[in-house]
């Protein structure tokens, strides 16, 4: 990704369409704005929403609630879209949600082999590796190898369920609550929950005692 090592080479300045995506976007934005096809303030509002508001902290709150409230967890497993909406999350790329639960016997992993489908409403926009060819190609055929690259070695007896998001249903993994978290409240629990654990490429680590807050 990013500019080639000799990015300041101007040999190719005279192509009709500039190859630098930053220039292409700038030209397209200016064209669409001048034609009245997009409102530049709406563009800013969209960017702001995903940079500052919609992200994995949403999903972490859902997970923490499920860990402390068994009736919430039951609703979440039966109708994830409604249960997640109880916490105020939903809409774009979270219209149809399913939550899959990790247990000592079953580990779940989410992928989209065909493009980049991802539950935006609870996890925000997907990281580059999730959208990358290596992850998309291998998660379905070699999930154990992929998880090993993430530092997660699962026992042979553990069943791995890989969910390929081929339709408009978006998946969220409910990770196992870590040992040693018994004394934590819902807010503290949510802080333990990582994006990677909710995709299924990591487990939630036990709270570190005495570490800096």
């Amino acid at each position, binding site marked *: 990704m990013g500019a080639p090592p000799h990015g300041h080479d101007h040999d190719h300045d005279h192509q009709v369409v500039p190859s630098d995506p930053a220039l292409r976007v700038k030209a397209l934005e200016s064209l*669409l704005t001048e*034609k009245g096809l997009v409102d530049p*303030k709406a563009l800013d509002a969209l960017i702001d929403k995903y940079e500052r508001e919609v992200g994995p902290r949403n999903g972490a709150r859902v997970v923490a609630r499920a860990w402390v409230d068994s009736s919430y967890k039951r609703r979440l497993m039966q109708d994830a879209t409604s249960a997640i909406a109880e916490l105020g999350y939903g809409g774009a790329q979270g219209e149809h949600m399913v939550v899959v639960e990790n247990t000592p016997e079953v580990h779940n992993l989410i992928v989209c082999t065909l493009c980049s489908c991802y539950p935006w409403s609870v996890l925000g926009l997907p990281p580059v590796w999730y959208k990358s060819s*290596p992850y998309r190609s291998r998660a379905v055929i070699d999930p154990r190898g992929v998880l090993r690259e993430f530092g997660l070695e699962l026992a042979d007896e553990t*069943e791995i369920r890989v969910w390929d998001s081929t339709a408009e249903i978006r998946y969220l993994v409910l990770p196992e609550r870590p040992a040693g978290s018994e004394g934590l409240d819902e807010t503290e629990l949510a802080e333990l929950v990582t994006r990677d654990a909710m995709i299924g490429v990591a487990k939630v680590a036990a709270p570190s005692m005495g570490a800096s807050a």
Partner: protein
Amino acid sequence: MNGVHDMGGMHGLGPVQYERNEPVFHAPWEGKTLALVLAAAAWRKWSLDAFRYQIELIPAAEYLRMSYYEKWLTAVTERLVQSGLVTRAEVESGEPAAGSRKATPPLTAAQVPAMLRSGVLATRDTVLAPRFQTGQPVRTRNINPTGHTRLPRYARDKQGTVDRDHGVYVFPDTIAHSLGENPQHVYSVRFTARQLWGEQASPRDAVYIDLWDDYLEPA
């Protein structure tokens, strides 16, 4: 289409490159591209599946070379031209054609929160009897359409078991080509890793794939 985008099960694409503390966008133009794609979609000139198909049409070598948002930028530019919202000459010059009328954007900043909150429902209330029941063995069809499809190659002509019925959804294979919504049931179908990959695969593991009625036959 049997494009390089349909990469489930491929080897040779390298190790997963993980970035710690990854920013939401790596450069301002990435955020701008996302915003342009969402704001342009508010014209409702194309479906999400048509946009996906446009990405699939990027030539294979380019597809593998481009970053994610470069693919989005290429696809949205193409959709804008094909829908008639802009001309290719305008894209190339970066300026509106002389005498073109100024439109009113369908999405304002004030409407952004509501637009994201409602999303776009792919479900339909159409009452349709499901062709398959939970627990029923099914076989995926052996189809190789040149258009858009969400039946991955690695899961064609394979036997699995219906795990759950998600309800009725619009059908990507037709909606991407403006051939109608063709609503039908979508099922989560469980395939054991060995059904998909043979004896080398773990006897424990499984892949669940969301599949439309038209992709399935009774096993």
